[in-house]
């Protein structure tokens, strides 16, 4: 049945999966079920990277995960075994697209991160305020438009000036390239959520070792 959970998640068969999750709760610990669902989500990410899945499939997968989580949450004493890190996330000022941001948020949560989502059209000042309050390990800024460059740069400049704690800045969105990351003064960048989550896991693992 564990294998079936992985398969149903990776094949996006939502109704069958939700039924199976409910029945598996009688046999398996909720954390075990979550682990299998995460395996399925990883496969979804791999299929996306290979070009077999599309962004709509990633969005659907994130939504299925949320629904599974809703079923399991009352049965979990602790949602995840260990908090891996804290992330502040938002779509930058002037950009109202939040598909990519929402996907990475779901993936972060399912990977054991505490996430503070600032939403869309987030000003540099709002990012700074949230960072000063939350003191996260990572700031993740997202943008779909090429015009996201200027607000991303402004945010990084403001944070470097006003916040002296250790903080990794990661950029996400379809226009993000190596040049962008360098010009903006961020640490890392990605234009797909699956790579983004791997990158964040790697950054924090290396820092904490």
């Amino acid at each position: 049945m564990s294998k079936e959970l992985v398969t149903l998640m990776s094949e996006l068969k939502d109704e069958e999966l939700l039924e199976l999750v409910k029945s598996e709760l009688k046999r398996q610990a909720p954390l075990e079920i979550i682990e299998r669902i995460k395996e399925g989500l990883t496969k979804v990410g791999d299929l996306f990277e290979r070009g077999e899945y599309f962004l709509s499939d990633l969005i659907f997968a994130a939504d299925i995960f949320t629904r599974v989580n809703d079923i399991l949450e009352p049965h979990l004493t602790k949602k995840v075994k260990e908090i891996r890190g804290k992330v502040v996330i938002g779509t930058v000022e002037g950009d109202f697209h939040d598909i990519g941001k929402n996907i990475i948020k779901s993936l972060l949560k399912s990977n054991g991160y505490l996430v503070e989502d600032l939403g869309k059209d987030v000003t540099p000042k709002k990012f700074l305020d949230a960072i000063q309050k939350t003191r996260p390990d990572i700031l993740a800024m997202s943008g779909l438009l090429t015009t996201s460059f200027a607000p991303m740069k402004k945010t990084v400049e403001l944070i470097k000036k006003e916040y002296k704690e250790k903080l990794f800045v990661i950029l996400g969105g379809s226009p993000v390239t190596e040049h962008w990351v360098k010009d903006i003064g961020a640490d890392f960048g990605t234009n797909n959520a699956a790579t983004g989550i791997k990158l964040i896991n790697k950054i924090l693992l290396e820092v904490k070792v």
Partner: protein
Amino acid sequence: MKKKKESNPLDRVLKVIAFSKPDRVPIIFFPEWDFLADFLGISVKKLLSNVDLQIKANEKFKTRFPGAYGAVSIYQPYASAQAFGCKVSDQENEIPAVVAPIITQPEDVFSLKVPIPWEAPGTRDWLLKIEYGIEKGVPVAGIGEFGPFELAGQLYGYDRMILHMRRRPEVIHALLEKTTQFMIDFFMTWAKKLPTGRATITLIADHVSGFMNNQLIDEFFGPYHKKITQALKPISAVMLYHSENRSGHIISKIGGWGYQMFHGQDWAVDGDLKKTKEVVTNSPNRYVLMGQVPGRDVILREPSDEVVRQHIIENIEMYAPGGGYVLSTGGGINRGTPLNRLDMMIELADKYGRYKSKKELYGPDEI
């Protein structure tokens, strides 16, 4: 010996669309609004609010690049979304965007009224600007706007729209019926304003196909585009589909939707860029490919001129033989693009993209 007269950029484009032979591969540039504002030395807001400045910027652009066809027009940002009641952001020197969707509850779709283009804000403003431009002698020949899915995403929210294709398909179909009907009405109204009552070309920008798998595309995307192209047949000579997103999976479908041209990028079929040309050429609904030169990552941002040069030559050599290709950046010309990079495209089309055959249709070895 008398030198043969050179074709002009528009003649070249028209020949390629007819699968006939121009003297060399044509080029079309699509400058973005912020690029044009910088080009004229004014803010984006000023450009978008003043038709005379738009006309001036367009003329300046065409004069600066006589070797390419400048796809410039008279603009009204997010006019169709405004017609339905969306607010558009108002920054001084950035391209505007739709602030927020107007449909808060899925059920609201069923009572959503399809606006009349001449009576609604946004589209009325745009039509008035077009009317003014024509009075001023601007040769407006084309029409263009976002497609039905893109407009639906602006009204409903993209992420919710994408999710509800699976969760609430009846709602999404109802919304797409309405946005499709509006687009047809708007294009028809616009075409009537043109001196001939017909458009030379109609551009429909609908990037969301890049987010959808083929099953979703066949149900929610293709049928609505087909409906538009069929409705516009009497008033538009050429239908042009534009998407800057991933498009390899739709290459075999675009002709069947009724388009004669596709402007895009990231179009490798099964990961193979050469296969794209093969699929299009052998399609019963053959259409013209335009683009694939990365406008942002190469033309704008690549530090080495030599790398840019190689990209352009590769595209010419891959797609121009046999015809049916227009050299262009895959999306618009971005703010900050060095002008010499655009000159380079024209020079290289001239050097590597000259057709030799005198035959009406020409083979792969004839460039």
